């Protein structure tokens, strides 16, 4: 026990003030590299896009230079039914993919945390989808989903003894988004899985031992030790997976381009189409800013709901 454990009875000494200052300085220095990099490479271009959103800038500079158009781009986007459909679609996607992906990732993490033979091999194999680049994933799943006689449909016919007809997974408005959910969850669950794996390491084994000695069953152990122990990890995984889900783009761009009938159109796909294909950069920037505020609101709500109540 040192003097610092007791309440201060006199003004801080000069030596102590010096130590406090240099501690503060160290903190700033430690924050500095990451902050500088993020400010330069993420914040600055993002702020720049605010400026572009207020102009009618084009992808390829024109002889007639771009000019200021105020909030016109925002008005145009907000009055476009395609934008609202994209927003609704990506919300639907998020609501479906977050529980599926995170649930499966947690299950796999729990399984792979146990002492199993060839555990490293399984950890490697089950992580393979996460290593595969999205374009390759899309080619593979595009083939699997092929209608009418792709592998998935053939398996479906086999399992139902030919009763269920082939499904046009990517071409039917009702199954298009669920199909995307399936392939997205397949590709990305690995990320959440290793975050959960890392989180599980922090839960002391002694707690499990004590519970087992007390006769607690597997489910009770899970509910009262694992879940609370994973609390911080869960908060992180839920918030991050939600944000990632709202940014859905690559698989849509490769496989469905927003179809059929806009049922898989997402906000980022809409933004890409407007900005890179139609070349209206100002409009695209407005879309990305609207998406930002929408997802920010959701993340703040999430953080509030999931906050530590102690």
């Amino acid at each position, binding site marked *: 026990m040192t003097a610092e454990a007791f309440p201060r009875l006199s003004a801080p000494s000069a030596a102590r003030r010096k130590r406090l200052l240099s501690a503060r300085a160290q903190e700033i220095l430690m924050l500095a590299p990451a902050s500088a990099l993020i400010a330069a490479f993420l914040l600055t271009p993002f702020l720049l896009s605010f400026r572009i959103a207020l102009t*009618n800038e084009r992808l390829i*500079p024109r002889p007639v230079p771009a000019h200021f158009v105020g909030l016109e781009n925002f008005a145009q986007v907000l009055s476009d039914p395609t934008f609202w459909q994209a927003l609704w679609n990506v919300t639907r996607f998020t609501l479906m993919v977050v529980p599926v992906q995170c649930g499966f990732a947690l299950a796999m993490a729990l399984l792979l945390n146990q002492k199993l033979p060839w555990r490293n091999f399984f950890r490697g194999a089950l992580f393979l989808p996460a290593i595969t680049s999205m374009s390759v994933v899309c080619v593979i799943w595009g083939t699997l989903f092929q209608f009418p006689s792709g592998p998935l449909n053939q398996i479906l016919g086999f399992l139902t003894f030919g009763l269920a007809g082939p499904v046009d997974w990517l071409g039917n408005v009702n199954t298009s988004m669920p199909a995307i959910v399936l392939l997205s969850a397949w590709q990305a669950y690995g990320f959440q899985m290793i975050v959960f794996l890392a989180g599980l390491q922090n839960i002391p084994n002694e707690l499990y031992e004590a519970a087992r000695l007390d006769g607690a069953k597997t489910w009770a152990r899970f509910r009262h030790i694992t879940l609370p122990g994973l609390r911080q990890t869960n908060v992180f995984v839920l918030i991050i997976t939600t944000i990632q889900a709202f940014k859905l783009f690559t698989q849509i761009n490769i496989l469905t381009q927003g*179809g059929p009938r806009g049922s898989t159109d997402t906000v980022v796909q809409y933004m890409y189409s407007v900005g*890179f294909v139609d*070349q209206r950069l100002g409009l695209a920037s407005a879309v990305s800013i609207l998406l930002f505020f929408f997802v920010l609101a959701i993340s703040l709500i999430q953080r509030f709901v999931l906050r530590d109540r102690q």
Partner: protein
Amino acid sequence: MTREGKNLLARASVAALALALGGLASGAQAANLKLMFQGDPFEIGVISDAAKRFEQANPGTTIELVNTPHDVYNEKVGAAVSAKALPDILELDAPFLANYVWSGFLQPLSGLIDQKLIDDMTPSDVSQGTYPPDKKLYAIGLTDSTVALYASRKQLESLKIRIPKGVDDAWTGDEFEAILKTLSTAPGVKWPIDLFRGYGAKTEWIPYAYEPILVSFGCDLINRETWRASGTLDGKGCVAATTAMQRWVKAGWVVPQSAGTNQFYAEGRPAALAWGGHWFYAEANKTMGDDVVVLPLPKFGAKGASPNGTWIYAISKTASDSAMAGKFLSFMLQDKAYRDGYRDHSGFPGLKSFAADSPLYAPGGPMATAFEQATKTAAPRPPHPGYPTITLAFQVAMTNIFDGADPQSELTKAAKKIDADIDDNDGYPPFGK
């Protein structure tokens, strides 16, 4: 200074020295040309070899190759323009020529390219490199492209369907629909035709492959005199064309988007005909051998129409040495090894002499009919600066029409969008009045 910085400085000094010495030694032309292009590995190899040979033949000149994957090609061009670092020689996708010329990036090729090369161009090649307002040639290419109708000879013969001998002999619109109907009930046929919807719902394939149907019906994506879309794109001809295509889809005659793009030659041949690009021949030929027969696209009206357009070369206005750039292009397009490379990868000819050397496309060859289209029916996509908007609007309209939407209202929506963009740019003078 960073290691990279030192490296850069060292290299720059060596280069400067070399340039200076080279200039002193030869005393003649010494240019440093930058060439921006895209291509698959074989093209990259063929082009780099040609560049090396040119450098040897012209000491003091260097060609710097900037290989840009075609995914974000336009974006890179835009970035280069903003950075005032446009390359000297630029490859571009034909439909974007008008956009680039209007934006002031390119200069006419006359006087820079060997005249005999210009004379060697097929009418299709000329049309895609020409800028309508001044009718000057801004781009040239060894290769071109087209779309033809593929079929199985055995299947057509067994169903007693006439096989056209050439472009003049093509099926008429009515004949074509009757044939589709016949095929729909033929044994083993799941879909009479594959329009390659499998390439995607938002892809350049849609205006590329389908606009000729509209043109053959007597309409167009945009009026090429007044350069406005309303009244043309949503006119009777286009509505009739797209209604016909919608009819085929509704009847279940067209391969759906999620069935992939290999149904023409997959086991059992579920698709009887294929509306495929010239590159499709190699795929089909591999599995079906000589049974593949290549037919001209049907003519739905008085005249038939076929697509064209590929990546062609232009010289930028800010080129450091336009004469040398032109010399390089003339050299490369006539270089034997360069031509052989493309011939071996079924490059579709844009130059008449190249066609004569390609067994595939020479008269009597399996793709001769397809090549005939380049002279007789090739119709370029609208060479207009607003092409990006035109293509996107048409892609959206066509996809919706395929899905059952009303053709008239979809085309009107698309036309309005195109005209709104034109108005946004004050008519793109000198295109608009």
